């Protein structure tokens, strides 16, 4: 056992809907959970705006972090006593699992894009800076906080340890897939984690899977694939995310132009200036952001007012899909028509692509761009998963990109600029030749709570 940690006199157990129980035996872990930085994660939803599509998706970064810790604890039980596993790394792994998302802010994906911040940078700051988390970690030794930060940043020299928290089959993904499936209420996203954990083995560079567990991993990859398309890339969620980004972008622009807010964006002030401190960052959570959106519904600026009302009342943008021909021949014209109709395309005509989303698919790492999942064969050699599994190979080769064009459809039906609006509709909905954008919004918006 590392110095600085004591076993709790009584094991603490948290009830959890995904893993049933989360077991805490180390004082270090118990104390980390009690820090204000960790407790802050209770006020940040795991899936951002997804709750506007799947109303059950109200779970937080706190729940997820606890789940990742629990999976890590179980992996370590399997590894204990096996070659390549060093038991003295146990607390480092558990701490990194627990803290891996601690730098996430409210709606961090949109927030980071607009304010050019990075949750991974904040994670490092929280772990190594002047925080309660840091004080607790330092009990384990002067370098311990830096080691935890390095594991999370994937620059820790022990690659096995890194792979347990961050690889293509790791504690983080195994928790979020199951947890997100549970809270969204979808039937996909489930896989036999117990089986995967039983057949997971440590090697020098990564955690690998015994080849007898290949079908359980196939199931995991299928779950991942389906969750991406059905939950993470859901177009209604993306519409909400687009509006959220545009609110932040508008506030930033108004401030640059010296606009006199009824409700001054105090909490954002130093983010506009780029002088934000860790304390500024820790003060932000989703309640704070929602408060501002509530207040900005009554601003004089019609764009900010409208966007906030849309977000709070779920009056989202509709979308069409588009293709190369549209980008080459119609995109510029469409923006002009929006301006002509008095609709600012900077806020009301938005392209969103799959690459704008923070989720990824399984990659076989054909050219060492990324470490793949390896199966441990009976002869002791490692084989990349898709070379053994036809199913994974088939999924790896599938189309996984899409682009959507979001716009306020109901505005095209309002009086004024009828001719221009008709021209816009013709461009958006023309269906006559191949490669034109097609209207698919209705089908999606009727799906899973998306009926408004």
């Amino acid at each position: 056992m590392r110095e600085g940690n004591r076993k709790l006199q009584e094991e603490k157990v948290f009830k959890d809907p995904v893993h049933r129980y989360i077991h805490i035996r180390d004082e270090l872990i118990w104390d980390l959970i009690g820090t204000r930085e960790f407790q802050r994660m209770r006020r940040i939803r795991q899936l951002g705006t997804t709750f506007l599509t799947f109303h059950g998706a109200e779970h937080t970064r706190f729940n997820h972090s606890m789940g990742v810790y629990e999976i890590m604890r179980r992996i370590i039980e399997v590894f204990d006593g096996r070659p390549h596993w060093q038991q003295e790394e146990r607390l480092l792994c558990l701490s990194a699992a627990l803290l891996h998302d601690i730098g996430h802010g409210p709606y961090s994906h949109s927030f980071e894009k607009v304010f050019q911040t990075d949750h991974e940078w904040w994670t490092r700051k929280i772990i190594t800076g002047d925080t309660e988390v840091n004080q607790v970690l330092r009990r384990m030794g002067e370098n311990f906080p830096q080691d935890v930060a390095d594991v999370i940043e994937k620059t820790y020299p022990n690659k096995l340890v890194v792979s347990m928290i961050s690889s293509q089959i790791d504690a983080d993904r195994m928790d979020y897939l199951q947890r997100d499936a549970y809270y969204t209420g979808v039937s996909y996203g489930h896989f036999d984690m117990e089986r995967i954990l039983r057949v997971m083995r440590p090697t020098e560079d990564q955690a690998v899977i015994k080849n007898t567990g290949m079908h359980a991993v196939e199931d995991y990859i299928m779950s991942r694939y389906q969750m991406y398309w059905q939950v993470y890339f859901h177009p209604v969620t993306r519409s909400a995310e687009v509006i959220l980004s545009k609110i932040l972008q508008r506030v930033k622009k108004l401030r640059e132009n010296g606009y006199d807010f009824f409700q001054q964006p105090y909490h954002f002030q130093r983010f506009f200036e780029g002088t934000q401190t860790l304390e500024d960052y820790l003060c932000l959570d989703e309640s704070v952001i929602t408060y501002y959106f509530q207040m900005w519904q009554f601003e004089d600026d019609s764009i900010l007012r409208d966007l906030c009302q849309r977000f709070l009342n779920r009056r989202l943008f509709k979308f069409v899909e588009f293709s190369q021909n549209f980008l080459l021949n119609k995109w510029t014209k469409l923006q002009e028509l929006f301006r002509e109709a008095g609709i600012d395309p900077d806020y009301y005509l938005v392209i969103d692509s799959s690459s704008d989303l923070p989720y990824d698919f399984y990659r076989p790492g054909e050219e060492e761009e990324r470490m793949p999942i390896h199966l441990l064969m009976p002869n002791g050699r490692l084989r990349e998963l898709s070379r053994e599994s036809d199913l994974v190979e088939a999924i790896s080769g599938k189309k996984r990109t899409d682009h959507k064009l979001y716009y306020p459809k109901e505005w095209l039906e309002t009086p004024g600029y009828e001719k221009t609006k008709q021209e816009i509709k013709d461009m958006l909905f023309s269906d006559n030749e191949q490669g034109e954008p097609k209207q698919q919004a209705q089908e999606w918006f009727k799906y899973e709570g998306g009926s408004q």
Partner: protein
Amino acid sequence: MLPDHAKLLALLQDAGEVVGRKKWQKIVYICKKLELPLQEKYTFHMYGPYSEELSMRTEELCSLGFVSERKETKAGYYQYRYQLTEEGNTFLQNMQLDWPRRQAEAITSRLNEYSSRFLELVSTMLYFDDLPKDDVKEKVHKLKKSQNYSNADMEEAWGLIDSLKETI
């Protein structure tokens, strides 16, 4: 979307052709570190800095037909060859991008001469560029044990980084 995609197209146009996904990843990272206006988010991985965003954007550009991707079979492994298409070129012209072409051309033509293994070293060293040189060296030795980079490799990498910095 669009402006970030267009910047990648501009970079690829300046590079002429890039052979290998790993090489493309490292070229974009090094250019970004040299302050070309690229937005892709990178994190550290087994083989050095890697951007999932870049992988996805490149796939998107291929599926839109703006970039051609040719898969080639080499001895026991696959390799991908990337080039801008005619449509990609037209799209880029329509976008009227503010892009530092001269610097981008100078940097990419140099980087294209090197192997992806060497660019992995350069990009790893740049990832730790806030550390003193000796610490960078130690990091590389610890994190890239299996690549077995020599001191001469490291010296060559520093030389390349310095001369690229002069370009900008």
